[in-house]
């Protein structure tokens, strides 16, 4: 900004006179930033750093940020409710934290002090399983945990239900 103020003294003489005189030429020639300069100075500044531009009010900005964040977190699954048949209350876990099915199932087994046995595609959960882990997917259907790839599970799981063994029989593949 400093270079703009290197004018000769006459040019900086301040007067309150009406325009339409030779002042007009002085008005035009002083303080003139070439449009190139303006372009450069503005285009090199990263957009995010221009305060208050674009002119979106803080309230709206906050709402937009929240909306973007929540749509991101929808993709990642985040916290889902976990219920177990017979338990007095539900729990919530962040399935984003786990990397695969064994991690998740171990965590759930610890949470509810139950055992779910071993998963096979053919039989579902067998071999010492009192309970079977199921989940509600985006379509509202109840599915057996473990059938689909882990990443697909994480994005489609809405809630978990640990079903009692007797009820769960029907969920194994025939």
């Amino acid at each position, binding site marked *: 900004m400093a270079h703009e103020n290197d004018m000769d003294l006459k040019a900086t003489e301040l007067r309150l006179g009406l325009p339409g005189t030779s002042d007009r030429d002085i008005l035009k020639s002083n303080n003139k930033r070439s449009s190139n300069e303006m372009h450069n100075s503005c285009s090199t500044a990263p*957009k995010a750093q221009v305060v208050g531009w674009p002119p979106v009010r803080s309230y709206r900005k906050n709402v937009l940020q929240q909306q973007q964040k929540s749509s991101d977190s929808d993709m990642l699954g985040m916290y889902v409710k976990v219920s177990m048949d017979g338990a007095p209350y539900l729990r919530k876990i962040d399935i984003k934290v786990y990397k695969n099915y064994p991690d998740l199932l171990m965590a759930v087994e610890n949470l509810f002090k139950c055992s779910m046995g071993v998963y096979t595609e053919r039989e579902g959960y067998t071999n010492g399983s009192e309970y079977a882990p199921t989940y509600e997917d985006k379509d509202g259907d109840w599915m057996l945990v473990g059938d689909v790839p882990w990443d697909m599970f994480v994005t489609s799981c809405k809630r978990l239900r640990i079903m009692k063994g007797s009820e769960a029989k029907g969920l194994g593949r025939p």
Partner: protein
Amino acid sequence: MVYSFPEEVLEYVFAFLSSDKDRNAVSLVCKSWYEIERWCRRRVFIGNCYAVSPQIMIRRFPEVRAVKIKGKPHFADFNLVPERWGAYVYPWISAMARSYPWLEEIKLKRMVVTDESLELISKSFKNFKVLSLSSCEGFTTDGLSSIAANCRNLRELDLRESEVEDLSGHWLSHFPDNFTSLVSLNMSCLGSEVSFSALERLISRCPNLKTLWLNRAVPVEKLASLLRRAPQLVEFGTGACSTEIRTDIFSNLVEAFSGCKHLKSLSGFWDVVPAYLPAMYSVCSRITKLNLSYATVQSPDLVELISQCSNLKCLWVLDYIEDAGLKALSSYCKDLQELRVFPSDPYSAEPNVSLTEQGLVTVSAGCPKLQSVLYFCRQMSNAALIAIARNRPNLIRFRLCIIEPQAPDYLTLEPLDTGFGAIVEHCKELRRLSLSGLLTDRVFEYIGTHAKKLEMLSLAFAGDSDLGLHHVLSGCESLRKLEIRDCPFGDRALLANAAKLETMRSLWMSSCSVSYGACKLLGQKMPNLNVEVIDERGPPDSRPESISVEKLYVYRTVAGPRADKPDFVWTMDEDGALRFS
């Protein structure tokens, strides 16, 4: 002739005058009319809280019932006014508490309101009816508790877009059980959940409730119950509508909405699942105002809803509507008067939606009553602006924000001077204009020449020299508010048009080229202006006079320099010396 009318007759006649302009004119006729009028003025509007003092207002108008006061300059909305700048309402409340015991209405915009102020309001005015806090800040839900508990005749509580420190939702439960006078409640800015049963009971016992804007915390499955208790509602704002769709929720909602035969305005819709929108179809044909600007819904779903709103007058929407949606709007909504299109992703360099200048052109062609536009987009052309101007010479407000600063006409790469020039030339009733894109001094020449009814002008990253500012200040006869940021305007135009500033409410200039020396000179020459330099780098005296100030706010006043300035604001004074607060 005048002397033969008894005062009571004149007072009776003056009571029919509602506009301030008319009352001001009447006051100038003669001393006795001045006296009679000032005793019967009931409503006062103060456009700038620092232009006049509470004492002056009270001295002149002793019997006021309704006050509306505005504080911070408009650019405060975009964080350009530093924290602690001012606009404190407490001195006003405290003065009015002593002198206006019968005050009924307080409406504030962009002011700092404390819990102390709210408590004082709630205890000082026995017949208090209307509290409207628009874009205010500084208070908590405790302040709202005082209002709820003590204002027995409250009709309106409107907190639109205020920043409230939300300590708890308990404030709503402070309305006493025998409180039944509520007509309007806007709590949309609050975060906390209020007690739902308290809300239900409140709504049930207030038969005159016409306006209810809920906050996000009220989930969609609870709406039906509220609507059933208030089928007389005219304006309704939902909470978040993000609960996964279930048949029972949906059918309850359909039934509840169909019972609302008087609904004219809908808003809210945060995070709305599109499958809920059809629940409102039964009311669409009566809807005149629709605020979907928080609804992240895609164009086809928006079009489905909008196509049923044949009486729509006002639409606020996100740019998800896209050009295709705007085309549908222009064919279904022939009564449209106001359109605001907000950006869904303002900070990304690339467009995320297919919304261009074409959408606006189409609406301008198809909606003959369109008079007010706010439009965010990423490309614009002179051709489009000229088309809009020719289509809609009846435009009154035109605010265009091209997201990239100094973006040229994307077709010709020229500045957008001729486009905006066409707007001011054709739209002779234009009162408000916001410019964006690449603009030279030429556009200001057009504005100064044609925009004779223009009252408010907002500029950013525009112009080449002082000539631009000079055109505006010397040509725009009706100009009241001018706000400028990042433009190469400096001392000469400002000083050459100093007298003009006394005819305006205010001038804001930030990141421009106005020197400290010029500010001092302006302050010296114009005793009826407060010339405030805002500079967070420390006292301007510590730098050479030729250095540009960070921000300048100039406004006319009869109250002298203000006494509540923070340490980064200096008033330029008649003495030419710095005046600290």
